[in-house]
């Protein structure tokens, strides 16, 4: 069952979200939270792509 999600619009505040990450600097797994970026007053660039081990 999938929940309906309203797609974000430009100018809208992005709701907080959290994703598991691999951090190559630490060489370990961790978590990314948008709220941490806001707290640190940092810009965030989200770069989505289809799949690892592919090209382009």
């Amino acid at each position, binding site marked *: 069952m999938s929940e309906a*999600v309203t*797609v*974000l*619009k*430009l*100018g*809208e*505040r*992005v*709701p907080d*979200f959290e*994703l*598991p*990450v*691999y*951090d*190559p*600097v630490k060489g370990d*797994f*961790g978590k*990314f939270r*948008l709220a941490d*970026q*806001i707290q640190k*007053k*940092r*810009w*965030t*660039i*989200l*770069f*989505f*792509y*289809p*799949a*690892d*081990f592919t090209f*382009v």
Partner: protein
Amino acid sequence: MGGDIITISTDTEYVHLAWQKSEKELAQVRHPMASDRTGKVSRMFGVYDADTGLALRGTFIINPEGVLLNSEVNYYNLGRNIGELMRKFKANLYMAKKANEVCPSKWLDEGDKTLTPSATLVGRVHEALNA
């Protein structure tokens, strides 16, 4: 530069680890590689492809207040230009400091000509850009 880049695909974080360690093109990667396994965040940004379970090539710039300011989405076969991403990011940084200025189409980097919208600029953009 006051910003952080996060890459996101629907692969698990284990695949990210394996890929970053095996692909020499990624040896210099320093940013977190996020896993959106369920596609929940990809759906929030409108890039989830339910037919494939993969995310389209979307780039989104969010300011320090959490507001979404820029979006670019390409289909699978077209890579994004990193120079263009940096141009947009730098423009956003600049305009956050100079809230009354806007960056026109030829703006490439700090120091390039900007416009200051006002009633006197209406119909006079050519003169302003070529002053």
